[in-house]
């Protein structure tokens, strides 16, 4: 590793200076001459049919330029091809409080704001649904007229081996129910978009989006315009976390208004409106049943998820699959069955938030395992260590695991935290808990079916030695621009701060699918690596010719290109570019990346595969005040298998950020709604939606486990999402160690902890959590025998059971 000059070094980010000086232009910073301002009228009822929407009175107001209603943009859209269920403005129905109905554009924002109150919208209320249970019980009225049945949006039933057989083989069988409440991304930057229409009929949209490519596609679809005439530029995101991964109604609305008015149109959402865009963590009610041998090895597991999807599809079908997919990549599970159901409810739609669909089941699983370890009188850390999935293996549900550093992560945190001296040994009120997890380094399949690369990079080399990297990826604060520069700089032996990075502009940059799914470092990194290697080859050939040495012996380092045997014999990088351009013509190269095929070939096998899985293990130490139930995290030790750090400082930053976000989800964050008066969000503000501050953040000790993965650029795997996952169950398990109560419901609030402590004092069940599991009408499972039962990744007909 030490031979790298850039990779693995704690360099600053290439955009750090601009960010620190406040020079970075976010979408809301953009100002255009003659710019207009847009405001949306949103539904005040959670469910209803839309009658006449009269914007006439608003249009009559001085300063108002134009307006739109649902009929003006009748084409549906949505992030997934199978759930194109959104309208830019409600056409037939509204499905949650906050669903947009009409748009007004005016000379200034105050006028637009005043004008939306003049719109006359006839809404006929329908019965509404606010919970999972209610959605199962209430098939009519349907919130959408598509889906599995009634208000069940999606059902997934998969069976990999006979779990009943697994339970029969077990020494111990345990079942647990856990509820994970929904929570939201809470980026500092609210969504903002600016659209401009040129006189020659071209549209440009600047937007705070994580997925400019998908926005590009959605605009072409809804506006009925050739994609070639639309340019989407993603501005640097002031935080995304998954909340800016869908194409949004406001983006389409400002684009259409720019087309109609011929003037630039901007919208900046209020914080409350960001809560209505949501697409955050699904509330999930889970039931997990496992059969285990005395040593904790899992003979069979049945996992069930009921997801509260909110009013639209969003990524929900993928989220449903994800809530059952990654359980198998950490510990050996011989037989595995998954049932998942996503409901439509009259709340803002849920979607992907950091960990997308996996933190909830991971939480349930890791708490479940903690209980199993106690049942079996095993140390929960040892039990995990003894049952790890081996590297280079295929799981029961056909996920191909490559490098697997979880064992090392567990060992690091056990040692660092003093686990053996602390677990079950600390005074009442102080506790320690462990949990592990895994996450994707990018999804193996794209969101819409195609066989093109997931990421592309173009390099342009200038005669003066300048290198420009063009890539469709967008930096959402995670450092993807820097990763592109570091990778190219490493290959070409130049200073990363000399490189110009041009990203996320559909006119200028090749497609990258977006900054989601922890895919950017691996995928655009690989594409950049390929493009840089091609450029290097051209330069090496030209330089070798000049130097009269073999091109295979040319070295690129420190801004020079020279002969390995005699470094004096060489030239500056710029001279090498001149030599190459003289020999080959203009120097531009491209690179692209497509993930390897995965072995699963059943319906649903597309969700879960990844070129590489990251692994994390966390130990949390907490204090629980037995008198108040208040939980405070003292310290978290976390080991993360990163494969290879491109920049360890950025990796640790992501680990700490993930831990911080996990801490908030574990202890306080919740998307709470009132459903008594109306289904309204209880706290749509940064003051009242409680998220931790620096006061609540604990010390974090990070251990990076490096074992380069052959599929990652220089061996790198993901870090953006994985480290959030073990934090939450580690805290729950630590709370149990501290005061002996199980809070099987996230967030673990003081109210719940105190109630459980009081119950324990009275000799009652010291557990707070769900006790009922409403069953939807499950479909027949798709049966896929696991590899060790002779399966080939394809489903088989389920064998008839006698009797």
């Amino acid at each position, binding site marked *: 590793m030490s031979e790298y000059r850039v990779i693995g070094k704690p360099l600053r980010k290439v955009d750090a200076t601009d960010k620190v000086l406040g020079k970075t232009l976010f979408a*809301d910073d953009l100002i255009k001459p003659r710019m207009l301002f847009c405001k949306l009228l*949103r539904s*005040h*009822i959670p469910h209803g049919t839309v009658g006449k929407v009269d914007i006439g009175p608003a249009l009559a107001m001085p300063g108002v330029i134009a307006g739109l209603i649902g009929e003006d943009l009748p084409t549906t859209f949505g992030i997934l091809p199978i759930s194109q269920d959104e309208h830019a403005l409600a056409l037939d129905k509204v499905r949650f*409080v906050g669903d947009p109905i009409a748009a007004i554009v005016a000379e200034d*924002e*105050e006028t637009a*704001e005043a004008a939306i109150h003049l719109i006359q919208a006839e809404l006929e209320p329908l019965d509404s649904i606010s919970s999972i249970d209610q959605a199962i019980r209430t098939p009519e009225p349907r919130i959408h007229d598509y889906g599995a049945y009634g208000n069940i949006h999606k059902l997934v039933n998969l069976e990999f081996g006979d779990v009943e057989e697994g339970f029969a083989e077990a020494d111990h069988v345990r079942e647990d129910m856990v509820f994970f409440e929904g929570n939201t991304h809470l980026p500092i930057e*609210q969504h903002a978009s600016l659209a401009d229409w040129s006189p020659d009929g071209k549209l440009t949209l600047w937007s705070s989006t994580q997925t400019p490519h998908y926005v590009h596609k959605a605009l072409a679809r809804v506006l009925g315009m050739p994609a070639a005439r639309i340019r989407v530029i993603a501005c640097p995101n002031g935080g995304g976390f998954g909340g800016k991964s869908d194409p949004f109604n406001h983006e389409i609305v400002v684009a259409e208004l720019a087309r109609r008015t011929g003037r630039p149109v901007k919208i*900046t*959402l*209020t*914080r*409350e409106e960001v809560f209505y865009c949501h697409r955050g963590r699904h509330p999930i009610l889970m039931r997990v049943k496992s059969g285990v041998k005395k040593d904790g090895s899992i003979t069979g597991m049945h996992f069930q998820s009921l997801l509260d999807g909110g009013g639209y599809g969003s990524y929900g079908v993928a989220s449903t699959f994800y809530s059952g997919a990654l359980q198998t990549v950490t510990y050996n599970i011989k037989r595995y069955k998954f049932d998942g159901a996503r409901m439509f409810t009259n709340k803002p739609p849920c979607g992907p938030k950091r960990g997308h669909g996996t933190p909830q089941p991971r939480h349930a699983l890791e708490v479940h395992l903690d209980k199993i370890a106690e049942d079996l009188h095993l140390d929960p850390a040892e039990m995990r260590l003894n049952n790890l999935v081996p590297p280079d293996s295929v799981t029961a549900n056909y996920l191909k695991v490559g490098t697997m550093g979880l064992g090392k992560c567990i060992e690091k945190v056990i040692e660092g935290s003093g686990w053996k001296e602390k677990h079950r040994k600390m005074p009442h009120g102080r506790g320690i808990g462990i949990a592990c997890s895994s996450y994707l380094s990018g999804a193996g399949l794209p969101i819409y079916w195609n066989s093109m690369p997931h990421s592309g990079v173009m390099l342009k080399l200038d005669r003066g030695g300048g290198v420009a990297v063009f890539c469709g990826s967008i930096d959402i604060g995670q450092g993807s621009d820097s990763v592109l520069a570091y990778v190219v700089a490493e290959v070409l032996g130049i200073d990363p701060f000399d490189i110009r990075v041009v990203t996320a502009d559909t006119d200028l940059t090749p497609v990258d699918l977006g900054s989601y799914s922890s895919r950017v470092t691996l995928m655009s990194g690989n594409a950049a690596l390929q493009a840089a290697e091609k450029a290097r080859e051209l330069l090496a050939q030209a330089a070798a010719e000049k130097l009269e040495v073999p091109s295979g012996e040319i070295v690129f380092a420190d801004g020079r290109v020279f002969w390995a045997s005699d470094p004096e014999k060489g030239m500056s990088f710029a001279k090498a570019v001149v030599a190459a351009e003289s020999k080959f013509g203009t120097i531009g190269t491209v690179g692209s990346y497509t993930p390897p095929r995965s072995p699963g070939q059943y319906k649903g096998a597309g969700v879960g595969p990844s070129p590489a899985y990251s692994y994390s293990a966390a130990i949390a130490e907490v204090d629980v005040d037995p*008198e*108040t*139930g208040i939980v405070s995290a003292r310290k978290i030790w976390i080991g993360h298998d990163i494969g290879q750090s491109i920049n360890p400082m950025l990796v640790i930053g992501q680990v700490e950020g993930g831990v911080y976000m996990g801490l908030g989800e574990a202890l*306080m964050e919740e998307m709470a709604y*009132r459903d*008594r*008066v*109306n289904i*309204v*969000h*209880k*706290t*749509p*503000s940064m*003051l*009242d939606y*409680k998220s*931790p*501050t*620096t*006061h*609540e953040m604990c010390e974090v000790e990070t251990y990076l486990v490096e074992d380069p993965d052959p599929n990652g650029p220089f061996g790198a795997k993901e870090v953006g999402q994985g480290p959030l996952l073990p934090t939450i169950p580690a805290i729950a398990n630590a709370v149990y160690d501290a005061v002996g109560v199980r809070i099987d419901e996230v967030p673990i*609030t*003081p*109210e719940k902890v*105190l109630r459980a402590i009081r119950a324990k004092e009275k000799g009652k069940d010291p557990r707070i959590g769900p006790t009922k599991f409403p069953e939807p009408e499950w479909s027949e499972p798709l049966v896929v025998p696991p590899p060790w039962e002779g399966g080939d990744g394809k489903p088989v007909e389920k064998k008839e059971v006698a009797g």
Partner: protein
Amino acid sequence: MLRLPNFHYHVPESLAEAVRIKKDLGPLAMFVAGGTDLYPKMKRRQQEPHHVVQIGHLEELQGVRRLDDGSCRIGAGITLTTLAGDTTLKRDYPALAEAAHLVASPQLRNVGTLGGNLCLDTRCNYYDQTYEWRKGISFCLKKDGDTCWVARSSPKCLAVTSTDTAPVAIALAAEIELVSTRGDRTVPAGDFYSNDGIRYLTKDPDELVTGIRLPPPNGWRSSYVKLRRRGTFDFPVLGIAAWIRRGDGGTDAPVEEARIVLGAVFSEPVLAPEAADALIGRPLSTETISDAADAMYKLAKPMDNTDFLLSWRKEMVKPYTKKALEKLIG
């Protein structure tokens, strides 16, 4: 983004001019100093003054001054940061400095003032929402509607007092200075509040709080504790201010006089004589503190209008009363 509506902004040159403007414009005008309470509420259309009268700069509202009788006069316009950091106040009135320190966040304390915190609008999570949100519940009794959603049968608004400094002011038996075009007067802090979420101040609407007067620091002790979700930023969901005077004989001497105030539960900070009675005549001990905590617990009837479950907020009255009183031992 959420924008302020248009309004007329007045910067009077004198106190007399300030109160005259308010008198002339009546309910259309509101005073502002730091604006940390008013401006966000104007953005959300909870407060809709057409005129805003700046008073933070007026000389009469400045400074911390020791008076001849040993009492102390604090201008209403001093910032909470100044109040929290003033070395004299920290020595003589530590509970008040502590309460100021616990308000909001450093940025907000840098502009928010003592007067503003004393007059802080009552809060409720049916009320502290945008116009659009409130429209979704057909508004509430406190603003634009006719139902108190916290308790539909309630004839009065149940919005909760959320000031940290007021419980301390009451516990210390501070006097509030008021000025209007009719002249000036002082009222005991305990009489300044009313248990009505809408009319939560007893002063006339055109009266301006110019300062508070604190009794001489002659041997009594005081404390303030605050419960909130996070270590900064949040309004209290419970505040306990305690004040005791012991007889001669050191820390074991019996408590002669006590005032314990319950903040952030009702629409006004409430003085609890039953809790004081549990202390008076006895030395401050685990037992008397526990009795006082029980009395506070009985008194507290939180409603579902702030963060946390109301049952837990009530539960917390005991340990937080204990915390406040334990600070006075020794």
